[in-house]
């Protein structure tokens, strides 16, 4: 069991405590992480988990120790070890007219703040005359336009593209 805990800890948190015991809480990282009924390639998917979901760790499978049994929301099944983390995603500090407050990763993801592109302040910074004097290539104004184009390319990547990428890198095993 200790070796199984080590397998998880060594990849996911080299500096973290390795004394993971059955029943300990671990966290999901990655989108739409499948909880499988067994470790078989064609196993039934029991649930899909999202970044920050907490699960109870029950230990690694003896035959396929990179698959770990977890319990979540009344379901018990197997998750690929690399989708588990010893620590939850970071909380974020959001400001509002009522003051600043910390929100967990899931609340942050569903807030408008998460999808912010180049802010008005940053655009204003890049477009101000003082930043565009002299001979520069590109100018700061051009840098703004290029960065906005880049942000469009980034934000327009779809879940399907990311899923295909994850599957390609792992040979479809995650």
């Amino acid at each position, binding site marked *: 069991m200790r070796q199984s805990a080590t397998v998880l*800890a*060594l*990849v*996911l*948190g*080299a500096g973290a405590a390795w004394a993971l015991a059955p029943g300990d809480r671990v966290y999901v*990282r990655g*989108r739409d992480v499948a909880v499988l009924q067994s470790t078989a390639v064609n196993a039934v998917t029991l649930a899909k988990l999202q970044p920050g979901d907490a699960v109870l760790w029950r230990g690694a499978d003896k035959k*396929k*120790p*990179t*698959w770990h049994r977890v319990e979540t929301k009344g379901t018990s099944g197997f998750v690929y070890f*690399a989708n588990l*983390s010893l*620590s939850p995603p970071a909380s974020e*500090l*959001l*400001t509002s007219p009522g003051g*600043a407050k910390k929100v967990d*990763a899931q609340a942050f*993801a569903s807030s408008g703040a*998460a*999808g*912010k*592109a*180049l*802010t*008005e*302040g*940053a655009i*204003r*910074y890049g477009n*101000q005359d*003082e930043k565009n004097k002299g001979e520069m*290539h*590109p100018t*700061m104004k*051009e*840098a*703004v336009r*290029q*960065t*906005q*184009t*880049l*942000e*469009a*390319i*980034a*934000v*327009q*990547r779809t879940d399907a593209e*990311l899923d295909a*990428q*994850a599957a390609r*890198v*792992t*040979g*479809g*095993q995650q």
Partner: protein
Amino acid sequence: MRRALLSLGALGLVACSAAAGLMKGDPNSIVNGLAESTTTVVGLTQDLSKCDQIGAAEVSFDEERTIGGTVALNWVQQGGGLLVDVPTGEASALGNPKTLGVQDTPRNQLHKYLNVVGRNLASRSTRPSLQWTFGVLDSEVVNAVSAPGGYVFVTRGLLKRVNNEAALAGVLSHEIAHVTRKDAFAIYQRTKVDQCKSLAYAKAGQKEGAAVLRTYSPGFINQAYSALQAFSGGALDLNAAANNALLTLFSDEFVHRYLEGGYARDQEIQADATGLELAVASGYSPRGFVDFIGALPPGQNFFAHHPAPSDRVASMKLLLGKTRMASMTSGPVGSPFSPFSQDMSQLPLVPLHDELAAAR
């Protein structure tokens, strides 16, 4: 306590100014000197106190994203620009990234690929929901750099040296780690306080403000000072138009300090460790990044401000050894898939790799 100490210092300055006038024997200068100094010193004390308040506030996501945007613009501008093809047409369309029509050119395809690779990695980080953005700078220098809020850039020169996706994933993961670990915040927080105080000293006509006076126009300094005077506690909204001069003051100096010194050695080594972890968790062999760093010729200006490649490789190998990652390459994990036994030759080359290598 800090405010009390500042007040005591201010009283001392007032006394000295009055004494100086008295020694000249000019009654007017005593009165005028006292009145001027009292106003200046009390005002300076209040301003310095505000600067401490601004520096003490935790950096919010909104502030991080705004300052990160300005830093990203500096990396783009100073890095020779991005290898993207900007759409022609209405400038306002650029403000709507979700609907902007982006041409399907080879350069834009390179960025599509880079953002799929990068976002897949970042989705497994401790900050999966940031608006992660990955770009290629048109520079021959071999380097990678990040900015707060989720911006990551690699240079054309770096991509030319990347022979497989595992190496690229390692580089991107290292920069993602700087953002998730908020490594820039230490420099930024110091910068904010120092620049704010330089501004206050500049307005008080004291030598500590000389750098600000040298760098910025009087009109700009007045704008920044107005913003400082209007600050009444709480979070400073750098995204507000009224605070644009302060944003400029902070951002410019942050960029200057980063370019002068970079991150601390320990931060770089930690980013290597976190980056390796992230690459492995995403399915990449750790060897991709280790081999890439190890292959950089010694003594050249690759990855400016980073520890020497040999030191980085040694630290990563130590980490791999400690965590027994290396021993897993023999396949005891019994899985049909293991990042430790990954055949990196099967991973794709970066799009345009040959074209980038041939360019210039």
